[in-house]
């Protein structure tokens, strides 16, 4: 196994374990633990991004997800002072079971499809500047200019929406 492969496995296993800790009931019973596990998972995923030469995206991933989004989660969990769902037995309705099975089936189908399809791909040779701030910025303001600009409307509507829902009513 090459060094890159070892690094990949470490990162992958870390990311998957973190994600599992969020989702699986025995670990993720306390939402705060789930949130922290997710932070760890995101950091490992940022490591995978670095391995894929996406430096700037990796940094933004850490900044936005681990730094901002998950902080918000932790804040809300603390604000609501949520207790672990110890007493709550998970209800297994048919559609939940069905959806889990279909999710697993989809995962299996894709995984089997991948082995046929993706072997055709070989890593393209990339310039040294691939994925740095300048190149990503260039893409954003050239190729995705309007999409980039319009995302400001998206963010603004999210802010307004959050304020509308969660604020105290003016009397």
């Amino acid at each position, binding site marked *: 196994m090459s060094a890159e492969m070892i690094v990949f496995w470490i990162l992958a296993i870390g990311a998957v374990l973190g994600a599992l800790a969020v989702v699986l009931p025995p670990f993720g019973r306390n939402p705060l633990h789930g949130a922290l596990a997710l932070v760890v998972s995101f950091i490992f995923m940022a490591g995978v991004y670095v391995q894929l030469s996406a430096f700037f995206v990796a940094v933004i991933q850490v900044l936005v997800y681990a730094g901002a989004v998950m902080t918000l989660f932790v804040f809300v969990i603390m604000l609501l002072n949520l207790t672990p769902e110890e007493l709550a037995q998970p209800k297994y309705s048919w559609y939940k079971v069905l959806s889990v099975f279909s999710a697993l089936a989809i995962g299996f189908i894709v995984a089997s499809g991948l082995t*046929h399809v993706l072997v055709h791909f070989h890593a393209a040779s990339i310039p040294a500047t691939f994925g740095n701030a300048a190149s990503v910025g260039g893409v954003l303001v050239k190729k995705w200019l309007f*999409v980039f600009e319009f995302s400001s409307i998206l963010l603004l509507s999210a802010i*307004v929406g959050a304020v509308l829902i969660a604020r105290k*009513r003016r009397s």
Partner: protein
Amino acid sequence: MNDIVLLSPIWLSALTGLLVMLIDVLAARDQRPGYLGYVTATGMVVSGALALFLWRHGAALTSPFLKGVFSFGPYTLFFGLIVLMMAAASLIIAPDYLRQQDADQGEFYVLAAFSASGMLVFVAATDLVAVFLGLETMSLSIYAMTASNPRSAVGAEAGMKYFVLGGLASSFLLLGTAFLYGITGSTNIVDIGNYFMVNPPLGAAILPSFAMALVIIGLGFKIAAVPFHFWTPDVYQGAPTPVTVWMAGAVKAAGFAVFGRLLLTMFHANTFMHIAFNYKLVVLALALLTMTYGNLVGIVQTDVKRILAYSSIAHAGYILLGVYAVGTSGLLDSSVGFYLLTYAVATIASFGVVTLMGGSMNEDTSLDRFAGFGRRHPLLGLLLTISLLSLAGIPPFAGFAGKFYLFKDVLQSNVQYNLPVVIFALVNFPQITGLNSGVGCIKRPICCVIFTHLMLDVTLLRLRSNGLNSLHLKHFLQPLSSNLSGNLGP
């Protein structure tokens, strides 16, 4: 410069949101923000006027920035106009309702305007990333609008359900986009279609088919097609009724516009994809399932908003049938556009009446409360009956014409199984849903409503004229089809 002109409907509706936000902040504290609804509606109308202007004069405009990401052809503008019209109608209904619920807040209208601009992006996008962004802008605002009434527990619950399932759907759409990007190297739908037309699939066809299926699932959620519909009744019932109008009218129209565009562009007559993943059959299956389910389950409902929700599910099935039938030339010169228009007008009218009722009925919209409605409010009762009959597709009304031409199109097209499908759909006529609620309205009086709404009159007139026009549908469709034929791509 051209891009600013071309995007004018989009940025104008977004600007309306900003303007409304500013007015709301600067306005006197004790003033009810209801008038902002009219301001926003005006913004939508102006935006629609700009779209009409572009329709007339914008054909020659091109912009390098928008190339490949947006198309402002007649297809976009037609559906954009439908969307804006319905948005304006919902906004005119909203203020009175919200005031009665004591839930009128200026931000509601800001979100509505942003949502409308998101819908326009959604409709205009020819790139899956822009589709996703428009979808999310539209949906995020609607999630918030759904949960906007702080007193309403059902509103919060509806918002949660819509949010969770909507988020799930958009991540499916996104995963499909990602795989399509991986296979074809592009997120532009025309490029993707061309790629599949020219290139043999890499290895097995499973990955492209899977990606396409994910995209269909993601959009299927938004148009509430049947295996992905289960949020619809709950959310339609729990949301404030103006928001329900918004979802049943504008969102659905936008969803179908994008659904049609994506399917017909990305699968553009390519042989390989038909072997691996026959999207036509998938759409047919969705259509039949959706109309049957909507009609059957709708019968047993006792809440008017739920009935209308199931009715909208059933109608989604019919529209899907139209999508199934149209050829590669596009949705516009088919009867789908017209069907969508009649559906939209009738939906807005019927939900509008329910809105006026619901506000004063403390959000209890069960069927019993509508007993004797026609005696108490003859005009509203008549309007509700007409629109429900139109939704049901009973002959003198526009809905009948819509269905008639839809079935005619399906029969005349050369798709597989067209005859049995039409027979099935005819048997499946949603008259039961409509009649059930229609009869319920003409019973005995219990409570009263004060408002007769301007917009409802307009809608009524519109409905009537459409009903008359539908006798000469060709006159209505002729200018459309001659102007708009076959303009799907950029």
